[in-house]
């Protein structure tokens, strides 16, 4: 089992969710995060004073999947998260991280392991 963390652009969440549904990944956890990366920030102003904002609003997905779903999940996220015209990726579209996952427990009925994902 793997624990997939994806950092994506907030406005791509819906497309990513759709793409994941297409590969039958329906369960995931979403969080508000902010990221520093290659993407250029923007400038804000306060009564004439400039603030260079490089900490950018992102959405983080945490998805626990069984091995067979790892690649489809990565592909689906990649597909959904690219923000350029014609499905081209752009700087700032984010990253996918794959971590090992040792166990899963479903709280409601206590089921453990792959079946609980």
């Amino acid at each position, binding site marked *: 089992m793997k624990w997939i963390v994806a950092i994506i652009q907030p406005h791509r969440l819906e497309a990513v969710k*759709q793409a994941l549904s297409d590969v039958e990944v329906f369960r995931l956890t979403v969080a508000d995060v902010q990221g520093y990366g290659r993407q250029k920030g923007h400038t804000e102003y306060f009564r004439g004073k400039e603030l260079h904002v490089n900490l950018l609003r992102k959405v983080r997905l945490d998805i626990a999947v069984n091995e067979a779903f790892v690649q489809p999940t990565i592909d689906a996220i990649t597909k959904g998260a690219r923000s350029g015209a014609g499905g081209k990726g752009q700087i700032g579209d984010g990253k996918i991280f794959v971590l090992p996952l040792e166990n899963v427990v479903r709280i409601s009925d206590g089921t453990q392991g792959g079946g609980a994902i």
Partner: protein
Amino acid sequence: MQVLQAFAGPSSWRGVRAAPVVMMLLLMMTGSAMAQPAGGGLAPAIPGVATLAATTLPTGAWAKRAYDTGSTAWMLAATALVMIMMPGLALYYGGIVRKKNFLATMMTSYSALGIICVQWFLFGYMLAFGTSSGWLQNIIGWEPSRLLMLGVDPIHAVTGVPGAPAGGEFPVPETIFNIFQAMFAVITPALIAGSIAERMKFSAWCAFIFLWGTFVYDPLAHFIWGGGWLAQLGAVDFAGGTVVHISSGVSGLVAAIMIGKRLGYPKGNIIQPNSLGLTLTGAGLLWFGWYGFNAGSANAANGLACAAFLNTTIATAMAGLAWNFAEWCHHRRPTTLGIASGFVAGLVAITPACGYVALWSSPIIGFLAGVVCYGGAQLKTIFGYDDALDAFGVHGIGGFLGAMLTGVFASTAINTTAGVIDGNWYQLALQFYVAGDAVLLAAVGTAVIVWVLDKTIGLRVSDSVEIEGLDVGIHGENGWQVGDIPAPSAVLPGNAM
């Protein structure tokens, strides 16, 4: 000033001739000694004490008279000011509750605006301020020309409107008096929401305020302001300490006890104000609007309105400081919710007093209000009921305190009523008697209404709605979306799988 005629006419009607059941209860409460003068003997016993009754005409004669544009201008503005108290109250209450009940709590005020204004149009105005024939006038207004406002003169001032205490010299059109009073009828039940916040069904709430307005507020307003039997006794209530605050506070207490505590109270994590800044803003709007409430209760742009305005300001400011002082003594933290709560407590306590008491007494009233209501807010912890936002602790206690202090500090230097400081101890007794009656009426009325609603449509939301929050559970809405996660699309199918 187009003052065509002063209020005049035979006020031959004196004694309380009828004795309905509710009065018997009241008499039981106060005992015969007190009831005796109330029956007719008291007022003449105090020379120089003109009462509300003196300016009312229970004979039902409504005659056109010219109005004063200055007073009309002020009453237009004052009525708008009272209206803004509802959005103010919504923010004040809404900011204190948990995020998940933010909108539902605000909705209690907004729905009161909708429901009670319509009830007022239908028959509320008639019940409170209509005239009735004979003994019925003691109890309630019953005058078909005020039903559906069909006979309300849309343009002119009229004589014969009971309860326009200072309207004699500079009168205003009936329509603006009407709507000014409508706003009082709205805010009173809206205040009760503070006691039952975060757990009452919206349908039950709507039914409750409709019934409560009809069976508690309108009669009480008629008793005291509309030429009813309490007005005859000589008790004074300038802008509604008894009619508005005692009645709503006590009703809140009864309703809170009957509906039960919020899940997890008092052990759980119940107290999480989502936005105290909005609560402060709401308190600010309340203070602002309260000028219309208090100074507008002079019903004219006269010197009395100005005195009421000054008294309101000083008492309120002092009460905010006093609350902060009390909590500083208690736990060394002067809180922002504290100053806001103190302001509200001061406004409540000065409400009945502002048009009667000497200027120098307003900071005393304010100081007592701040300290006593701070104590009032601790009662629920001691006695274990869940008056969620302290409607009883602040409005009930503060209103009672204000009614008493009016009896103490009323001064003939500012109005026609003498209080203890002028040597008239009877006034204090009267104030206590009338406040007690209001407590009784509010408590009994609320208990009956809540009991009926409990047996019919039910009072409380389900546990799952209470846990999820009333905003989503009842209204299908979400109060705050200030994070960056986009809300899900309405159209994506299959997400719930």
